[in-house]
C-alpha cells in the first residue's frame, strides 16, 4: 500500500514538473528569425546520404541569409540527426514540432524515416518537405507532406522511353536485385513501359542482396542477345555486373537509375561502363548558370562535387523559401497552400511543379559515361513518359 502511494506521489510530482513546460506549439518565427527544421541521418548506415543533403541545405541557408533572408527574416536552421533509425525520425519530428515549434520542416532521405516523422507534422499542421524520399506512400500520409524528387515509377518509365526512342532498342534485358524494393520497382515499371512502346523484354534475371558472382545471369542474358540491358541497382553491384558483362564479351550499353550515381562508380568499374547510360536528378556538367553557380559554390565550401542528394538538399530550401514568399505571411496554413500550388519552380534539379499528390513533376537527366565524366545527354520530361 505504501509503495502504491509512493508511486502515485511520484506521478503527481512528475506531472507538476512537466506542467510548467507548457505544450502549445510556437508560431515558428520571432522578430528576426524564422525557424526551419531539418532531420536527416548524419550518423549510422546511411550517414553519407544525410551528410550530403545537410551540406546542400546549409549552403542554401547561408546564401539566403547573406542575401537578406526570407521576407526580411534570417533563417534559423534547427537540424537533428536521425541516426539512420525510424524511431529517431519520430522523436526528432516531435521535438521539431513541439519543442522548437518550427514553421516548416525538411527531411528525410530514407522513406522509412520520413514515414515515421510525417504523421507528427501532419498532426500539428506543420508543412514537411522531403528532399529525396521516393516511396509513394510518404506524401499519402496527409495534405501537409510534400516532396521534390521524382518517384520510382517515373524513373523506370523514363529509362524505357530512353531505351526505345534514343537508343532505338527493340530487345531489352533486365537484371535486378530481388531483395530491394527500389530495384524490383524500377524493373517492373521499365518492363511495363518498354512493352507499351512496342519493345520486347527478352530476359529478366534476378540476384540476391550481397551477391558477388553474376556469371549465370550474365550468360543467360547473353544467350538472348538484347540491344540494351537495364540494371536498376546501386553502384557497388553495378560495377561488378558491368565487369562480368564485358568479360563475357557483351558490349551493348547498360542502363540504370539514380542508384548508379557515386564517385566510386568509375574507379570500381574501370572502363567496363564506358558508353553506358543512367538517369539522375541533375547533371553536374549542366550548362544552366544556376547549376554552374551551385556546383562551384559547393566545391568551394566542401571540396567535392555535389551529389544528387546535395542538389536536392539545396533545392528543398529554395522551395520552402518560395512557399513562404508566395504565402506572403508566416502562417503555416497559407504556406501549405502556397506549396501545394507551386508551379514552374526553377531549381538546380530542373524546373518542376508540385502536382495534386504533393509530389514533384520534374524531368530526369539522362547521363552518358564517357571516361571519368557523366556527360549529359538529354532531359526526359514527365509528359513523354505518360
Amino acid at each position, binding site marked *: 500500500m505504501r509503495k502504491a502511494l509512493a508511486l502515485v506521489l511520484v*506521478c503527481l510530482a512528475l506531472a507538476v514538473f512537466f506542467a510548467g513546460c507548457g505544450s502549445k506549439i510556437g508560431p515558428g518565427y520571432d522578430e528576426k528569425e524564422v525557424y526551419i527544421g531539418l532531420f536527416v541521418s548524419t550518423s549510422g548506415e546511411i550517414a553519407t546520404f544525410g551528410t550530403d543533403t545537410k551540406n546542400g541545405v546549409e549552403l542554401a541557408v547561408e546564401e539566403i541569409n547573406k542575401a537578406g533572408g526570407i521576407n526580411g527574416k534570417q533563417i534559423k536552421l534547427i537540424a537533428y*540527426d536521425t541516426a539512420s533509425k*525510424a*524511431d529517431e525520425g519520430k*522523436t526528432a519530428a516531435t521535438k521539431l514540432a513541439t519543442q522548437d515549434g518550427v514553421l516548416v520542416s525538411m527531411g528525410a532521405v530514407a522513406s*522509412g524515416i520520413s*514515414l515515421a516523422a510525417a504523421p507528427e507534422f501532419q498532426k500539428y499542421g506543420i508543412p514537411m518537405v522531403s528532399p529525396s524520399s521516393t516511396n509513394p506512400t510518404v506524401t499519402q500520409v496527409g495534405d501537409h507532406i510534400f516532396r521534390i524528387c521524382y518517384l520510382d515509377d517515373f524513373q523506370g518509365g523514363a529509362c524505357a522511353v530512353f531505351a526505345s526512342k534514343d537508343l532505338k532498342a527493340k530487345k531489352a534485358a533486365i537484371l535486378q536485385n530481388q531483395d530491394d*524494393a527500389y530495384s524490383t520497382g524500377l524493373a517492373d515499371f521499365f518492363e511495363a513501359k518498354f512493352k507499351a512502346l512496342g519493345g520486347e523484354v527478352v530476359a529478366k534475371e534476378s540476384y540476391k542482396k550481397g551477391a558477388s558472382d553474376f556469371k549465370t545471369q550474365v550468360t543467360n542474358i547473353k544467350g538472348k542477345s538484347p540491344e540494351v540491358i537495364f540494371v536498376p541497382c546501386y553502384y557497388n553491384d553495378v560495377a561488378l555486373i558491368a565487369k562480368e558483362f564485358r568479360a563475357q564479351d557483351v558490349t551493348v550499353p547498360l542502363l540504370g537509375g539514380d542508384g548508379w550515381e557515386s564517385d566510386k562508380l568509375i574507379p570500381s568499374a574501370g572502363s567496363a561502363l564506358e558508353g553506358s547510360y543512367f538517369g539522375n536528378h541533375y547533371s553536374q556538367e549542366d550548362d544552366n548558370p544556376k547549376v554552374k553557380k551551385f556546383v562551384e559554390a559547393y566545391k568551394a565550401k566542401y571540396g567535392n562535387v555535389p551529389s544528387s542528394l546535395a542538389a536536392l538538399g539545396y533545392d528543398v530550401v529554395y522551395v520552402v523559401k518560395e512557399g513562404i514568399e508566395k504565402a506572403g505571411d508566416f502562417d503555416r496554413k497559407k504556406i501549405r497552400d502556397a506549396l501545394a500550388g507551386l508551379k514552374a519552380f526553377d531549381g538546380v534539379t530542373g524546373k518542376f511543379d508540385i502536382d495534386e499528390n504533393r509530389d514533384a513533376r520534374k524531368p530526369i537527366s539522362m547521363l552518358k559515361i564517357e571516361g571519368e565524366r557523366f556527360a549529359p545527354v538529354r532531359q526526359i520530361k514527365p509528359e513523354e513518359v505518360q
Partner: protein
Amino acid sequence: MLKTLGILAAGIAVAFGFGLLVDNAVPPFWALIVNLCGVSIILAVSLNVINGLTGQFSLGHAGFMAIGAYVSAYFTTTLRYFDPEVAKYVSQQPLFDGVWGFAPALLVGGLAAALAGLLVGIPTLRLKGDYLAIATLGFGEIVAILLTNFKQVGGSKGLTGIPSYADTSWIYAFVAICIAFSLFFQRSTFGRALIAIRENELAAEVMGIRTARMKVMAFVYGAFFAGLAGGLYAHLFQTINPGNFNFMKSVEVVVMLVLGGLGSLTGAIVGAIILTVLPEALRDLEREIALPGFRMALYALILILMMIFRPQGIFGQRELSLKLLRRILPGGRK
C-alpha cells in the same frame, strides 16, 4: 497469488492514472519519450527472463517483436497499397475495428510471437552459449527477410497508416502486466528453476528440473511479451518496415539488460529507461556543439566506461528495493 493479482490491479490502475497525467500535462515530445521508455521496458524485462534469469543468450528479440508488430497491425489497419496487384490479397476494412479491437489484436500478435518462440525454441535451445546466440540471430534475420519478401505486408516498403492506438495508458498498462508477471515468476517454482538452470544446468537437471522444457517455456514467455511490445510499437509509430526490426534492435535490448545488470528486474527497467532517454537528452548538446555523430560517440563511450568500471551492470543481479535504499542512504537503519 492473491497478492500478485492485487499488485497487478494496482499497477494497471496506476498506469491509467499515469497515462491521464502524461497525456494532459506533459509536452508531447517528453510524452513520446515516456511512451518509448514503456516499450523498451517491456522488451528488456521480457528478454531478462531469457537472458538474465535462465542464462541463455538470445539475440533474436527483434524477430519476435517484428512478428507481434506485423500481426497486430495486420488486424487493425485498413490496408491501402500503391501496388494494385497487392491490394487483391488484403482486406480493405480492418478486421478488428476501433480502439477496443486493439486489445485482441495485440493479444493475437503476442500469441503469434509466442508460437514462433515455441517453434524456434524447441530445436535451438539444445544449443548452448555462442551457438544459441548465433541460431537466434539467424532467426531474427529470417523474420526480416521473410517480411521483405512478402508482398502482402508491403515487402521492403512495410505497412503504413496504422492507427495510433497506443497511448501512455495502454503502454503502461502492459508495462504493469509485464512487470507483475515477471515479479511473480521470479519468486515462483518456475523462476527458481530458471535460476537453477542459469547457475548450473547439470546440477539443475540432477535436482529433477526438466531443463529443456523450462528453457523453452522461458523462451515462449519472453517471445510473447516481445510480441506485445512490437504491437505497441507499431501502433505508436504508425508505420513499420522490416528495417525497424533488424539485428541492431536486438542488440539494443541486450545492451539495456547488460547496462542495468543481467538478471535484475529493476536493472532491466533502469537500463531500458537510460538507453531510451540518453540519445534524446544528448540531442540538444549535439546541436549546440555542431559536431555530427557526437551523440552516438558519447553514447558508446558511456557504455565502454560502464563495462570497464562496472562490468556486472548498474545493479548486478540485485534488485532496487526500499530495503536496499535504506541500507545505502546515510543514517539509514541496517
